[in-house]
């Protein structure tokens, strides 16, 4: 693969490129899902190919080929140059300098999840699902996934990197219905469970079977729970919901390519400006956010990004002030800051984009009980159910699967159909406590969308439960 990439880079330079990089990717992924006691999916997918990105006269070009052959590599290189040459107008681009990257990286795993027999995976799901059984639970489902991705990057700036990323994850859902009502509970999160760069031991540690009875009971109990009231109140978000809050209202706005407008027509832009760096108050003094592609077990963990930039922990928000953006070599050159490695592509058939890696809300102190103890009247919200944010990442609305009334520091009755809404800087400005390291969890999601043609990124977020004051809750249709 390394030789093929080198051939592609050479062919691109020979065709007129001033810069070229080539990535060869071989990916294998498995999905096992069971539903209502029967096997719904047993899937084993392989994909391989090579993508070539070039700069010609300051214009980007990208082309790819599924054939890992010299013919495929040189053909993709020539097509990418031709497409760059066809770009209308005058172009000027500078890439921030980077030391030639060389080396290898492999995820640390105890038991390779791809090598775990499929029937073990089926059995794991069926056992977990059986534990969801309840007369009013009408749909039960459990799933596990595993992926191995081997990729090689060679660039005309001297990068020559080989990495093997192994990840896996799991989750389950219980859907309860009665008299026209419908409720869902999930574990460990909604929308595909949790994943990590880890071995099968991670899936076993999630303990799906252990958690299933609670999940089912809560789904059923929600059918007769009172709806979340409307008003302004104190909310405590669990780690899972907070991770999505972080993803949508911090992770995407700090992507510097969005700030410069490259996603404007689709995913949107950002309320942030390049000039906000170092001065914009993003949130309260309690807010400390880092982007860390070296976090052990994160889905955004690697040694080098897809431009050959070495992984490095970056401060994003420090004591509530914006200190960093996620950058590419191109955007880093524009702003004169950045680094740390944030450029990633979805497989071999897409261009790298600025993506979140492992974006973490740094822990504060104390336990969740201590967070709740300082809530006289409020809500504890768990597990995302719906999510939406505007094109500049300011106005958001989230719904959670379950809520708990908090009265005089103690959890009270269960509430259903909880929603909360806010404006990003005001909301983070209302953060007055983050629980400590014991409550901090790093977990990954695999469906972060961006780019056209679309790309799904695998990213992780670390967070402990946190408390926000004066939040609008209970939005209704």
């Amino acid at each position, binding site marked *: 693969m390394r030789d093929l990439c080198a051939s592609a880079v050479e062919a691109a330079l020979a065709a007129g490129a001033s810069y070229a990089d080539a990535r060869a990717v071989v990916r294998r992924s498995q999905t096992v899902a069971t539903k209502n006691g029967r096997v719904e999916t047993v899937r084993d997918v392989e994909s391989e190919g090579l993508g070539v990105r070039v700069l010609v006269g300051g214009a980007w070009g990208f082309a790819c080929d599924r054939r890992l052959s010299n013919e495929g590599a040189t053909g993709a290189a020539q097509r990418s140059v031709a497409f760059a040459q066809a770009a209308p107008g005058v172009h000027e681009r500078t890439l921030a300098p980077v030391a030639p990257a060389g080396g290898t990286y492999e995820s640390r795993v105890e038991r390779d999840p791809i090598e775990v027999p499929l029937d073990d*995976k089926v059995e794991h799901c069926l056992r977990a699902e059986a534990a969801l059984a309840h007369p009013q639970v009408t749909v039960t489902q459990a799933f596990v996934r595993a992926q191995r991705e081997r990729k090689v990057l060679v660039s005309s700036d001297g990068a020559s990197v080989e990495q093997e990323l192994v990840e896996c994850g799991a989750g389950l859902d219980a859907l309860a219905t009665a008299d026209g009502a419908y409720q869902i509970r999930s574990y460990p999160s909604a929308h595909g469970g949790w994943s990590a760069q880890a071995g099968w031991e991670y899936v076993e540690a999630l303990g799906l079977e252990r958690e299933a009875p609670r999940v089912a009971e809560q789904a059923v109990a929600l059918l007769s729970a009172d709806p979340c009231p409307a008003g302004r109140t104190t909310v405590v978000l669990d780690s899972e919901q907070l991770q999505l809050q972080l993803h949508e209202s911090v992770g995407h706005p700090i992507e510097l390519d969005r700030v410069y407008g490259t996603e404007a027509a689709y995913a949107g832009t950002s309320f942030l400006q390049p000039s906000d760096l170092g001065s914009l108050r993003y949130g309260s003094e309690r807010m400390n956010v880092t982007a860390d592609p070296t976090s052990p077990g994160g889905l955004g963990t690697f040694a080098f990004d897809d431009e050959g930039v070495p992984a490095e922990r970056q401060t994003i928000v420090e004591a509530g002030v914006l200190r960093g953006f996620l950058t590419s070599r191109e955007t880093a050159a524009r702003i004169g800051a950045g680094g740390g490695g944030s450029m990633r592509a979805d497989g071999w058939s897409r261009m790298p984009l600025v993506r979140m890696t492992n974006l973490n809300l740094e822990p504060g102190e104390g336990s969740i009980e201590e967070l709740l103890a300082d809530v006289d009247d409020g809500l504890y919200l768990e597990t995302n159910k719906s999510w*939406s944010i*505007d094109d500049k990442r300011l106005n958001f609305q989230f719904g959670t699967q379950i809520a708990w009334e908090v009265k005089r520091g103690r959890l009270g009755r269960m509430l259903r159909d909880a929603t909360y809404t806010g404006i990003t800087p005001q909301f983070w400005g209302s953060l007055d406590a983050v629980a400590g390291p014991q409550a901090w969890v790093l977990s990954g999601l695999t469906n972060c969308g961006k780019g056209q043609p679309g790309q799904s990124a695998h990213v992780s977020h670390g967070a402990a439960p946190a408390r926000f004051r004066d939040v609008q809750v209970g939005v209704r249709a």
Partner: protein
Amino acid sequence: MIDALETAERAVAAAEADEAEAVVLAERSGFARFAGSEVHQPTLVEDVSVSLRLVVDGKVGVAATNDLGDDGLRRLARRAAESAASAPAEESFPGLAEPAPLPTVSGYDADTAALEPDDQARLAAAAIDASTLLTYGYFTSGVTRVAVASSHGVRAEQTLTDATALVLTAGDEMSGYAELTSWRAGDVDPAAVAREADETARRTRGARPLEPGPYAAVLERYALAELLLYFSYDSLGALGLLEERSYFTGRLGEQIFDPRISIADDALDPAGLPKAFDFEGVPKRRVDLVETGVARGVVWDRETAARAGNGHVSTGHSPAPLEREWGPLPTALSVAGGEAASPEELAGLVGDGIYVTRLHYLSVVDPREGVITGMTRDGTFRIRNGRLAEPLVNLRFTVSVPKLLSEVPGLTREPIVTNLNDFYGARYPFGVLAPALATVHFNVTGTGSGPGI
């Protein structure tokens, strides 16, 4: 482009199983994406994927690859067999589809298939040059070849073309949006799309906030198409109905919407993005979902039809092999047009309300009740005295789709196909044929930023 049917047949031949079915999806596409009036993400894609589903002793397994060599297909067959062997036998599995005559449909245009990267760049330039504002968006065209072959004798192949010009134009605190899609690139004029976006953008400067609350509204086709797509995920497919996630659960045969509302899924309509068969090779058919406001049905594949019994059969809506867990979903929604000549005429029917060009980041809040939240963007206006009035900032809405469709003063005459493909994974063109619509019920629950980028 490869012979997709021959590849599918080779994959079936490589399998040792009671039943085998191969689906091939081949793509050749070009994507000239631009921002700030400059192409910044030009992407050429050539790929082929083969999915093989095997049934062994009643056990079902699926594997996929893009290695089409003999060794690659043999490995594919072995992995599919291993997948099947790992699963318990499925008594409810209806078996693979039998061959059936396929409808003749349009959907392929040789001129579109012949577009080269130079052409895609030129057509993107046409959009960029037609606007006096900064432009963001893309021109894309592609060829998709789908083939299904099985040990039951299914032999189905179709070559599809599609082209889309999508443009957002923006200036200081103003932005507008337009999009046009067709299976014939000749029908897509990127410059006209850019001019439409420009015209909208220029009316958005000076946007004002709006007090949250219930409003009447006019939704342009872009907004209605996206809202219906999200509603369809739970409510218009058989799996949602069987799992009681659907708003249609217990309501089939009832008057649920305004009598002006008729919705079908019609992949045979040449005005859309036509398709002859689904991913099991079952012929596509028109399905009436809502007739004059009455809930009539949902779309089915063979598996959900077998589970439901009661005489249900597949309507030709089996999802792609790697997306089967979603169940059958409509991919060619079509909303019948009304009497109005233009969205502006609908504003006259509304009298006092808001005008929405486009939506952003929708999410289903309550599937069973069809409640969806999202934002408006790139062209939101107040309607006063039946006319478009001052521009508004982006609005957060949280609406019940059934309530929104329960009182509809009018729709525009001509439904137009709106692309809803974000081009994740393999290319498979789809969209919604939708007119613009006026509604009495549109619930604004907050405000966001102003227009512009």
